[in-house]
């Protein structure tokens, strides 16, 4: 991204600026000290929620506590958060078409690298997604790896074919939130509460949601990298 670093004209108010910057340091350092004191005066042993999590872990459908919290215990947060991601993308698209970037055609290295790495990255993403159930990992890690693959392709000058830049792309973006919400609603219709997985199905449902989420996160991050909506009929 290009920065517009136009040096500000040197004026007499620069000195005043430095003065009030110094003035600013005082309250801010006071704030820092205060917050530090607040942190230090915390109880040394955190009450935490580890015990609760551990107690309910086996009914959560996954063995990795973080994933259990993310997708099950506090799944509702995650649902809304997928909403935030989609919303951010919507916002970026609503600002207008992606700015035209005139970089030289990618060199041989990038060309090869992208060809070489992208399949690998996708593989890694898949693995992370799968591993998330039991070990650190999961949809977000997988999604971001997927996104890097996408970014790499974009850097290599590749653009999504206009045939897919319409509804298919939007479907991919919505998939995460959509599946999540669909599961939630179905569970309600089956007489449960919002996001109350039947323990026997929990694992499968979580995997399903995570898969969709991975796809959406990856696509969304890559699309955000473009900084605007894909203009019609643009491909390499």
């Amino acid at each position, binding site marked *: 991204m290009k920065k517009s670093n136009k040096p500000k004209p040197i004026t007499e108010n620069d000195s005043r600026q430095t003065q009030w910057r110094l003035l600013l340091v005082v309250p801010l350092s006071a704030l820092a000290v205060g917050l530090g004191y*607040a942190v230090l005066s915390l109880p040394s042993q955190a009450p935490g929620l580890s015990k609760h999590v551990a107690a309910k872990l086996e009914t959560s459908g996954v063995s990795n506590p973080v994933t259990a919290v993310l997708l099950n215990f506090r799944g509702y947060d995650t649902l809304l958060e997928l909403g935030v991601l989609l*919303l951010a993308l919507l*916002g970026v698209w*609503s*600002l207008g078409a992606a700015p035209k970037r005139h970089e030289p055609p990618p060199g041989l290295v990038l060309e090869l690298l992208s060809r070489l790495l992208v399949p690998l990255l996708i593989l890694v993403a898949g693995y992370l997604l799968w591993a998330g159930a039991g070990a650190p990992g999961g949809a977000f890690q997988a999604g971001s790896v997927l996104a890097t693959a996408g970014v790499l392709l974009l850097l290599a000058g590749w653009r999504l074919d206009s045939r897919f830049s319409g509804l298919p792309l939007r479907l991919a973006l919505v998939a995460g939130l959509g599946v999540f919400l669909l599961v939630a609603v179905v569970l309600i219709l089956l007489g449960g509460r*919002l996001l109350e997985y039947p323990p026997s199905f929990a694992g499968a449902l979580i995997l399903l949601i995570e898969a969709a989420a991975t796809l959406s996160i990856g696509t969304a991050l890559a699309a955000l990298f473009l900084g605007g909506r894909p203009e019609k009929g643009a491909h390499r």
Partner: protein
Amino acid sequence: MPDVLLSIADIPWGVMTIVLPLAGAMSSFLWPRRALPLGLATALAIVICVAGLGWQLVQQGAQRYAVGGWGAPLGIDLYADGLSLLMLMMTAVVGLGISIYSCGYFNLERARYFWPLWMFLWAALNALFLSADIFNLYVTLELLGLAAVALVALAGGADALTGAMRYLLVSLLGSLCYLLGVTLLYHSFGSVDIAILAERVESSPTVWAAMGLMITGLLLKTALFPLHFWLPSAHASAPAPVSALLSALVVKASFYILLRLWLELFPFASAALAQLLGLLGAAAVLWGGLQALRQTQLKMLIAYSTVAQLGYLFLAFPLASITGWTGALYVLLSHAAAKTAMFMAAGNILYFGGHDRIVDLDRVVQHLPLTITAFALAGISIMGLPPSGGFIAKWLLLEAAILSGQWWWGIVLILGGLLSAAWVFKVVGYAFTRSEVPHEARAVPAAMEWTALLMAMVAILLGLFVPWLLALMEIGLPFGGVGSAG
């Protein structure tokens, strides 16, 4: 598997008010050409669900809903009482009005992004008003903030973009302060559920720091003087329906969280802090009123009056009585309806004459009688003349001020009313001047004029159905005490 059939009584209406707008947002994003009908349908459905929730609460009293069936502290709880119900109803009424208004206002290109963004905003609002979990509240705040910013930017043009940018930075800063507070609270008491925290919380340096951070962050988002600097530009430069949304609903959301925390978590907050908030509120009332009077552009004027009206909300903190809180809540409700009507009216005027210079209004308003009527009626409520919601609010706050022996807050109230009367009549006065036909005029869709008028009527009618609303408000006694304000 439990039985598939549910009786109306145990449909989770509250959850529906969150799920529906999310679904609406996604569908209108997937099928942009159908965005408008999809959005309208969703809006209607939400209104029905809110009504359902209201009926449920009246039947069963305040209710707690454990998402995922885990329950606090492990899971996230939703909580609905009279306060949240009134906020949801306010959102539903204003939201429906704005949805109808927008049909005429946006062209196809804008509409395809307005609807999903607006649906996300609505989802964020409903989720926020129903959440009982301070971290979940953080997520809803972010959802709300990003949607609002994107909607402001929808207007395009330097003003709107700059306004949106500043709004975004402020909003993020506010959320971060709030989140740091949440962190401290969580790590001191091991829960983010408001009810549980309310039991465990006691005064300590950490808690005070957390309180300071959270209140500051929320005040920043609520634009309480002197943290209002971002509001006028953002609210005035946004598209008219969006300005209405921001002034009527979005700023109220952060105030709602502030109110909840104040009532539940920070009972030990010293009276000095309450006095400070009241003082800032008073400053906002006077400053906002004076600035509004000085404006030459209609939308800018209305935006500054929002700054003033937000000040009224904080006068209730030093009064700290059920009457006072009820008064503040009534300011909140009537201002939502009135300000929506005003921004809609301003939108119509802009749409019609292509400008909103106050001195040249006579060229416009002569041809938009319904619009100027809407503006005048809304003005009656804003300046607190009877019969209107604004009057009831003023009455309650004044009564609370005198009862608590702090009559000076009453003076602020009165002065604020006079200031707003001054600018309202300054604008309305132009409705009666002789005027020639405007040069370039564009016919305003009837729906836009009528929704503005209806919103204004709501603001007036709020003053005539007080007992009903107060009865709803007392579900679950959000303000403690034995209810029956007044």
